[in-house]
């Protein structure tokens, strides 16, 4: 059963439409305030849009278009929500928390607890059954919350940054658990982490300012980003412009030579983007001798450590570029913010593809 949604909420400048195939997990990526949580709230029935409709298979979740005012309440939607915090009911132990969904669906206490045991085992938390939420660590509580959501047998599982509140030691275990349980399950996961998208999602949706800016298979989006946000997540420089025979030209006249992706015949004049890693960018002082291709004068805005390299940022936000160089090279060149330097990009590492 496919899930389809189309909704707009004017007060939050929110307008999105998306669909999920059976068994598909989609990651929603986007900056803070982009409308990711609004999207989940609308799907779960906690937030009412001005217009739009949503359905899972034949079941209508809501339909506010054309004079109809169908609004099914959250408990009839089959869309369990897992938030940043586990929000386990503090007065129930882990087992009864997980049994909450089956109990609400009408199962007997014994049957519900049996189901709960099964799901606790599924998330490697069977030994925590008797504990109260106050006696669980953040990672344990979140795993129990995953079991609780799954025990409700949702048709669509909504995860709102489930790893964000966990410390770095607890996150990998939960990520492995999620990878296992999200297999063949319809789920939408809001995340800030590229790793989550790679590990858990079949498809990625990038949202910015309440609108979807990019959709595609996870690898496609993260290795061939078309939005600045996705490029930033993937750690790539991204420039937009017009396709030429051997690269692209930006609106301000800079020419980036690169290689066109195979399986695509470029037509000059078409809108395109060029992506390249900061490691493909070198920094020089003064004029460069030899090939002038892919060489641009820039002003350094920022220097910051990045792994064992120094990341040099330059240019204003729309056309910003980054270069990764060694600390020794940075010291030799005497780089400081405000300095005028020259960025040279290795054209062999520049990928050009349509926007």
């Amino acid at each position, binding site marked *: 059963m496919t899930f389809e949604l189309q909704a707009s909420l004017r007060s939050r400048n929110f307008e999105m439409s998306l669909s999920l195939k059976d068994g598909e997990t989609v990651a929603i990526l986007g900056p803070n305030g982009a409308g990711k949580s609004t999207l989940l709230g609308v799907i779960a029935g906690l937030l009412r849009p001005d217009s739009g409709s949503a359905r899972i298979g034949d079941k209508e979740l809501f339909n506010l278009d054309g004079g109809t005012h169908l609004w099914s309440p959250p*408990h009839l939607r089959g869309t369990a929500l897992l938030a940043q915090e586990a929000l386990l*009911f503090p*007065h129930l132990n882990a087992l009864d928390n997980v049994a909450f969904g089956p109990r609400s669906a009408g199962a007997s206490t014994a049957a519900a607890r049996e189901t709960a045991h099964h799901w606790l085992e599924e998330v490697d938390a069977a030994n925590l059954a008797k504990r109260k939420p106050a006696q669980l660590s953040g990672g344990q509580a979140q795993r129990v919350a995953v079991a609780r959501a799954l025990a409700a047998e949702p048709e669509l599982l909504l995860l709102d940054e489930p790893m964000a509140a966990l410390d770095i030691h607890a996150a990998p275990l939960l990520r492995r658990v999620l990878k296992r349980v999200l297999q063949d399950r319809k789920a939408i996961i809001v995340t800030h982490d590229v790793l989550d998208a790679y590990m858990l999602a079949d498809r990625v949706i990038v949202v910015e300012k309440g609108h979807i800016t990019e959709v595609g298979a996870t690898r496609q989006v993260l290795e061939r980003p078309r939005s600045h946000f996705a490029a930033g997540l993937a750690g790539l420089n991204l420039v937009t412009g017009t396709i030429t025979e051997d690269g692209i030209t930006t609106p301000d006249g800079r020419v980036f030579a690169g290689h066109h992706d195979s399986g695509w015949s470029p037509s000059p004049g078409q809108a395109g983007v060029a992506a390249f890693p900061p490691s493909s960018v070198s920094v020089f002082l003064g004029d460069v001798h030899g090939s002038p291709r892919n060489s641009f004068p820039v002003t350094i805005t920022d220097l910051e450590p990045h792994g064992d390299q120094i990341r040099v940022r330059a240019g204003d936000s729309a056309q910003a570029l980054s270069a990764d160089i060694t600390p020794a090279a940075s010291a030799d060149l005497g780089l400081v913010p405000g300095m005028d330097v020259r960025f040279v990009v290795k054209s062999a590492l520049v990928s050009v593809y349509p926007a």
Partner: protein
Amino acid sequence: MKTATGYQGIPRWIYAVAAVGGLLVVLPLVAMLAKVNWPQFVPLITSESSLAALGLSLRTSAASTVLCIVLGIPLALVLARGEFPGQRLLRAFVLLPLVLPPVVGGIALLYTFGRQGLLGKSLEAAGIQIAFSTTAVVLAQTFVALPFLVVSLEGALRSAGNRYEAVAATLGARPTTVLRRVTLPLVLPGLASGAVLSFARSLGEFGATLTFAGSLEGVTRTLPLEIYLQRETDADAAVALSLVLVAVAVAVVGLSYGARRSSTPAEVRP
């Protein structure tokens, strides 16, 4: 937890003023204790009229506390969680008995449920008389005690937030199930302390009861009314019965404090 070494930031003179405030409350109690006729204490409080008054007080206060819980939970819920026009006005009116002189409350009740009252006429026609009955005592006590439960519970509901309820709903729980299995258990300490305060207020109710229910021995003469009446004829009995009320009040405050203490552990963090 208080630590002896932490900086408190309280000027010393504050302690002096606080001591005066404390004395204002404690001194009259001490004065009353000094007046108690200890040899006659037990006979005084076990006299027939005293026991009748005490029994009536406990029964009516228990009944009005139940009534406060039954009516107060929905009121607190719609005030804390609901959204409807006139919500602020409703809150103001529900809290009114807190600041209204009880005598005024009694008169208002009389013109509602009395023989010539708004509802009283119809009730009279149906053969039901409320004014000057034990039912009137319970109504008067509920009238003055209801705000205590509503205020206490509304505060608990607000500080608990509704995020647990949202999660419960997405797990498939109907609103009534959410109320029973999530909301009420979460605010149980607040509900308990509100109920204890309501009971205490009911137990001490005087003005509205006297105006609306009168002072019939065994029917409407509760312990405060009995004390007031005895004071005219037998001061020793009045003091002894007062001490009984003080003892009950101290027990109630202790219970309420205990309930509030247990409501603040890390479990109920928002």
